């Protein structure tokens, strides 16, 4: 990567002398600029949420807050109005937690079983099912909302917590199944055969052998699902029922509502608060994401 010409007189010996090369500097410069590009919006969001409206009006969004305040966070959390009620995001937060905590494990376990069955228990039509699922990944959600509404109301789950969990499971299924299928296909088939010889059946192999092995890819799945489900707005609005409305619905009401003038501070505080959960999940487990994705995504 670096060209070093031994200047006359010095007898090369030992390690090659280290040089700061232009390429190396360039790489760091590129990475730092890129990092700035990625971080600025978050910084802007946080800074804006800590400025008063006057300050926002007076300066620009890139200026540091002169008198940082968390008032708007408090307001967004507990007293911002959405319609008649002025309860902030708090009630929706717990609904979102509820929906996420239920939907994430259920959707992942089902997708995991799919991937496992598709990799090891191929039966007639399994590939077709999979092709349909992959096709399903391309269908705009809203097109399928109608049939699902009819289906769920037929079984009495429309507008209930189980209803929204089912919806998230359905829409998470294509990509998650793809991930798990790729992951399980990369495992040695001998493992499966050994378990079969040991007399284990479908479920036993799944729970005792496959499940414990799929931790890396499961982490990827958890991250994807937490993000997707937490950020969902449309499904929550339609399927969750009024008691279970997720936080994003209130976020939408807050940011789309203007009391005379747009209160960017509150909007941004609400935005940051709503994004906080998946953000924390990423910052904590982001490095597992890259590692895990190698297990499920790279194999075509």
């Amino acid at each position, binding site marked *: 990567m670096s060209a070093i010409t031994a200047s006359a007189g010095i007898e090369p010996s030992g390690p090659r002398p280290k040089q700061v090369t232009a390429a190396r500097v360039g790489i760091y410069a590129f990475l730092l600029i890129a990092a700035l590009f990625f971080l600025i919006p978050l910084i802007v969001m946080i800074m804006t949420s800590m400025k008063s409206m006057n300050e926002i009006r007076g300066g620009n969004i890139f200026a540091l807050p002169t008198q940082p305040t968390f008032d708007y966070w408090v307001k967004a959390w507990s007293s911002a109005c959405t319609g008649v009620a002025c309860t902030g995001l708090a009630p929706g937060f717990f609904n979102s937690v509820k929906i996420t905590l239920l939907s994430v494990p259920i959707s992942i376990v089902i997708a995991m079983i799919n991937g496992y069955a598709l990799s090891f228990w191929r039966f007639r039509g399994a590939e077709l099912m999979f092709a349909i699922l992959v096709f399903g990944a391309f269908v705009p959600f809203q097109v399928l909302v109608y049939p699902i509404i009819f289906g769920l109301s037929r079984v009495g789950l429309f507008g209930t917590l189980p209803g929204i969990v089912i919806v998230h499971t359905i829409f998470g299924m294509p990509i998650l199944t793809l991930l798990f299928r790729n992951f399980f296909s990369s495992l*040695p088939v*001998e*493992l499966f055969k*050994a378990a079969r*010889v*040991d007399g284990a059946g479908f479920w*036993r192999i799944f729970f*005792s052998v496959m499940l414990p092995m799929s931790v890396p890819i499961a982490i990827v799945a958890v991250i994807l699902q937490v993000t997707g489900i937490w950020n969902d707005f449309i499904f929550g609005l339609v399927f969750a029922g009024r008691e279970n409305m997720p936080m994003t619905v209130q976020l939408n009401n807050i940011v789309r509502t203007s009391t005379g003038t747009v209160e960017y501070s509150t909007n941004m505080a609400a935005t940051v608060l709503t994004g906080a959960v998946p953000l924390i999940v990423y910052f904590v487990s982001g490095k597992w994401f890259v590692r895990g994705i190698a297990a499920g995504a790279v194999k075509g």
Partner: protein
Amino acid sequence: MATSVDIRDLSLNYGAVTVLDKLNLEVGRGEFIVLLGPSGCGKSTLLNCIAGLLDISAGQIFISGKNVTWDEPKDRGIGMVFQSYALYPQMSVEKNLSFGLRVAGFKKEEIDARVKHASEILQIQPLLKRRPVELSGGQRQRVAIGRALVRDVDVFLFDEPLSNLDAKLRSDLRVEIKRLHQRLKNTMIYVTHDQIEAMTLADRIAIMRNGVIQQFDTPHTIYNKPVNLFVAGFIGSPSMNFLNGQISNDGTFETGGVRIPLNGYGWEDGAVKTGAAVLGIRPEHVTVGAGAKALPFSADVDIELVEPMGADTIAWTRLGGHSVTFRAAAEIELHAGQKVTIGFDPARGSVFDAQSGDRI
């Protein structure tokens, strides 16, 4: 000897591809059978069929006299050891061993007793709490064997259990498996494409090619009386020298101007054949130097290449236009370019029909 595994007219297709074609194999109780053949010939496929891991297309499989053709793997009384060992990575050795028993719902005491017994036989008691990643290759292999052992099965199936290991460990474990067999006296069916393993371990070897068994006999017979060119060439390292030529009416084999009398050769049906044929002679049956002159056939040749192997030396030369190798004791001084006399007794060779490749 009672029959332990009996395979009748077994066929297996993948779509239009026939991997096994009406294969028959009868294995006696307590026998150590090795399936040997080049890569892709269907060895693993056959083993998987016996284990019940593949759905066969036609035929029947009997194990210990019971028709198990449609039985689940666990009900066949077989244990299997894989090339990659396929140990359950997240379970301790003990759990790995007991998994099958726990699935079958055995009592705890029974499980403990069997695990103890197996781990004693295999000398893996100190490893019971470890997980597979913490084991060396040889230890892993023993655990894999133990997994079959605890299930107290009649038939052990091995699919290239040694091919992932380095040479030294391989030869150690080979001896260990042999000793284990002498002790347990189970039926063992062992897949490999390493002929040293096949020769040293097997009571009988089945040589496969393209899903068909070519020869099924003792190592000695296979080595000395291969039924066809394929078997002859496949077994032995360095491999048998083949000379293409003609057998004339007087029973003399002629190739590239060299005449080799076939007196004393044991013809398959006692009568001398004539016409195009291939004479095969193993490198170690070629003598060099003083003794060579005394043999029924001898010739002077130039040495082209010498490979010292420590214990002995392989030399490459040409005879009648064909490349011929021979093996000499390490003490004999040989070097490229040297002129030597070689000789052999054609009676120790094999003669094959040039067309069909069959031994004649």
